[in-house]
């Protein structure tokens, strides 16, 4: 029996069927992506717990959670001893439960940066003197971690130095990052939003990465890093309308110190290809998104 040729209605039906399934697949994909975005881990809390757990079994301790007073006495605010999280700075506050003795060390959060990714975790501890057989005091240890542009940059710079490989970091420069920059210029306009220009400079001060002003004086809380660095300066336009400017920072191992704000200004022959060639780490920004002046 000869086959009946396909009618227009059949073809239309097949097309509708395919279209419905196409929409279904796209809908499912969107749903999965949305759920994935919603299922974030609390990375700041995770970092705080990791730092706290590390401190409790570090060189400062004699058995898990029993901290040695003489070790704690060696450090003050500004040091980050015993533990280090790459992109989060930590501050430890340790107190005996009677409140008579306390210790503080680590990196202070940047004042005024309320929106910085921050988390605090508390840990029960015991305290003893070196050589003492028994725990002498009960106490609490509070770990506060915070992530700012400066801690993130210190992380990528150290990673670039340790691995000898270029490291990049996506970041949205917002109002909060003005803590690491100097206001350079404001151009008012009747028709459009005002244009704000910032000078952002980073430099090493006594082995610590700091945001500095035009005279090289620190204007931010600094963080100790284990990487040589020749300095960085960029003047950029802040996108007021978008309330932030997306950009990519890069830490590049180089053969000689080079001060170039734009990554494209760093010549290929200066970029170190092996750890032996590397002399320092250069910091730069991708000027495709950020308007560099």
């Amino acid at each position, binding site marked *: 029996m000869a086959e009946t040729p396909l009618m227009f209605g*059949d073809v239309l039906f097949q097309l*509708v069927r395919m279209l419905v*399934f196409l929409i279904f697949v796209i809908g499912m994909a969107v749903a999965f992506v949305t759920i994935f975005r919603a299922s*974030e881990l609390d990375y700041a809390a995770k970092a705080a717990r990791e730092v706290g757990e590390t401190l409790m079994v570090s060189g400062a301790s004699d058995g898990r959670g029993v901290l040695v007073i003489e070790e704690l006495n060696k450090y003050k605010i500004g040091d980050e001893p015993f533990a280090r999280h790459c992109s989060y700075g930590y501050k430890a506050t340790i107190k005996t439960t009677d409140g008579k003795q306390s210790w503080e060390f680590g990196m202070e959060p940047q004042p005024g940066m309320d929106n910085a990714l921050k988390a605090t975790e508390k840990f029960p501890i015991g305290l003893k003197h070196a050589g003492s057989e028994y725990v002498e005091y009960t106490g609490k240890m509070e770990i506060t971690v915070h992530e700012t542009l400066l801690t993130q940059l210190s992380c990528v710079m150290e990673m670039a130095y340790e691995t000898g490989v270029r490291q990049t970091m996506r970041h949205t420069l917002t109002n909060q990052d003005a803590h690491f920059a100097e206001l350079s210029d404001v151009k008012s306009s009747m028709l459009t939003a005002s244009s704000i220009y910032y000078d952002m400079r980073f430099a090493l001060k006594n082995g610590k990465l700091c945001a500095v002003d035009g005279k090289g004086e620190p204007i931010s809380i600094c963080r100790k890093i284990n990487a040589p660095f020749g300095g960085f300066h960029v003047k950029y336009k802040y996108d007021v309308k978008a309330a932030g400017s997306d950009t990519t920072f890069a830490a590049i191992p180089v053969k000689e110190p080079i001060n170039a704000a734009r990554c494209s200004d760093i010549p290929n022959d200066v970029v170190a290809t092996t750890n032996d060639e590397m002399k320092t780490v250069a910091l730069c920004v991708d000027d495709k998104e950020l308007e560099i002046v």
Partner: protein
Amino acid sequence: MKGFATSYFWTVVVVIVALVALLIIMLMMICTLFPFCPFGPAQAVYAINYVDAYNTPYTIASVLSQYNLGDAKGNEKTLIDYAYETLLTGDMNVADKEYLAAKLKDVLDKYKLSYYEVFVTSSDGPLLQFGKTLQKCGPKLEGTCTVTTGGAVDGIRVGTCDVGRTEINAIENGCGFGILCCTTVSQDKYYKWLDEHPGSVPAAEQKMAVVKCGADEAGICTRSECDFGEISIAGNCKYVNDGKTPNCCSTNPDVLKNAGKIADAEIPLFYGGKDGTLVVRTSD
């Protein structure tokens, strides 16, 4: 075309199913925009969070193992020393128990934990237990120390340990002055105990039904609010016993463990052919 009718029918069915699925997904996505939505993204965020309670018991156990709790005679002793002594002798004298309970309370209360419990078990069963929220009692530590309910409420006798629980003779594992040692029993045993202990307060013949509540039926619907020795858990008791037992109380710490609110640090004990475990159970 042969078979086309069947193909057409099932295709229509599948298309309808796909459209309904899409509609549900869209409604769910729209729903997440509203605060009253039962499956918002915020819920998913908290679902993958860290439960702090898991590491605290290990730290507390470590601190206690280096803490000189001492004894009534002035000797130096840590919790580990006490645990081994109890394991080897199978028990602890009352004076030492009272001393250790007071000393542990003194140390652990400083950490302001909402829940703590320290116990030693051997292969034969529990040997010793000290706790804040749950203080075990009775010859085999089968009961929990509880504040009395007073016997009768609204003319209905519920017993001194409230509905579904009865007093037991704690012998040497007592709870101290004015505190009862109560254990959970079946409804038949509970009614029998009530009949055998009429009490001084006149009460009607009516008895409360023993109704289990909460996850895994770990609680009992009780007359009094969950007090010392009891953990308040979510359970539908509102209409049980004509609304006279609206509180769901449990004496089983597993309800807190399963909720991630408390955790155990277990320290194995081996000595002279005997083995046991020292368990430090705390909240965060």
